[in-house]
């Protein structure tokens, strides 16, 4: 049970793919101009992660070291293509925004890393949980960065939510009383925003570490290589 909890904490926080492992930065930086875009890409990535992890875990008995990476890439590429097709068919409006970036999920090293170091050694259920946790961690980072950039850059929040959830959600959009600072939604803003988030994450992690070391008398922060 403790192991499962560790997997979740690892994926969402301690080894957050975007903020700690710094994997998948290409889609992360490119797409996070608004919160909704970030959320949508996060959900798509999570779906691919879970499916990849489960598939890899199912065939882990048959895996051959030499063919490992080829097989992983094949699986990931096929699943992303399927997600791309389905999103185009059933979430068409959103696909217009994300269209270019869904194929980019293929380049998200976080997925390959999960398949390689995690899913290929765990049972299907645990692998799915790992995929879900890592995906959730990635989604949280995307939402945070997207929200931050949207507020600063456009002065809005939740713009375009109706594209994701249906027309009833168009009213949720918040309009803040300023026009926004343009640079936040431009590419440099993505780097500034990500840097701020990583700094914040490190700050919070250090504070927590300070608490736990003082109580548990741990001299060294544990280095986790997952």
């Amino acid at each position, binding site marked *: 049970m403790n192991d499962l909890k560790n997997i979740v904490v690892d994926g969402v926080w301690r080894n957050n793919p975007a903020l700690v492992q710094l994997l998948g930065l290409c889609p992360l930086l490119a797409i996070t101009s608004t919160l909704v875009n970030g959320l949508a890409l996060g959900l798509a990535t999570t779906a691919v992660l879970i499916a990849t992890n489960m598939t890899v875990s199912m*065939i882990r008995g*048959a*895996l*051959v*070291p*030499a*063919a490992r990476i*080829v*097989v992983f890439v*094949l*699986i990931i*590429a*096929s699943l992303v*293509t*399927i997600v791309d*097709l*389905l999103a*185009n*068919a*059933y979430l*068409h409006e959103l696909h*217009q925004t994300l269209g270019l970036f869904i194929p980019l999920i293929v380049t998200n090293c976080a997925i390959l890393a999960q398949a390689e170091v995690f899913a290929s050694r765990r049972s299907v259920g645990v692998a799915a949980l790992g995929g879900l946790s890592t995906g959730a961690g990635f989604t949280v980072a995307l939402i945070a960065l997207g929200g931050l950039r949207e507020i600063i850059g456009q002065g809005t929040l939740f713009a375009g939510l109706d594209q994701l959830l249906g027309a009833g959600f168009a009213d949720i959009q918040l309009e803040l009383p300023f026009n*926004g600072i*343009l640079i936040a*939604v*431009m590419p440099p803003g993505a780097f500034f925003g990500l840097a701020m988030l990583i700094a914040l994450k490190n700050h919070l992690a250090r504070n927590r570490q300070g608490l736990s070391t003082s109580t548990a008398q741990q001299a060294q922060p544990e280095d986790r290589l997952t």
Partner: protein
Amino acid sequence: MAGPDLQTVRAIVLITAIAAVAAVLVTGSYEVSHERIEENRQARLLDMLHQVLDSSAHDNELAQSRQAVQDLELLGSADPIDVYVATREGRPVAALFSSIAPRGYHGPIHLLIGIAYDETVTGVRVTSHTETPGLGDAIESQKSDWILGFDGTSLSSPPADDWAVSRDDGWFDAITGATVTPRAVVTSVKNTLLYFQQHKDELFRAAPSNGSDSSETTDE
């Protein structure tokens, strides 16, 4: 035993099997989704077309009235561009050009320009562009009303010589912070009007007189 070692054989079998399964799944989801994707694409196109021409103004199948025309100087592209021809009860109503304004600030601006048979503009929309966010993107109808300023204009109102932005002593409003972008759009609309003036008879002659004829519907 001679021959390839067991590991290699296993690797080949595994990759082949996975590739086969993946091919089946991808093909399957394509089969499931491609009709709906095509419908979405058509609906989106029609939606866009109806932004520059009121849907009650015509009664033919607009999305299927596509013709290809080419004029590097006036329509902005060396490749053929799409024109959709609207008719009502067989009579010509308007032509909708997917013109290109080649001299945007960051490259070509793709426009959809509706021109009524009497040579007035029924509407203009930007379909895609790479102008500066926050400045040049005011040409998008979602960002500002600037693009609506073309509605009802023609080469005689304002006079052809005044088809320029106010910054260049023309009739059209300038956009704060962006000079190149509106200039490119105004020029493109003007040129498309000129093209229409010269070619409108052949455009409508080529159009099927009734919506029932759909020889142009060769969508892949």
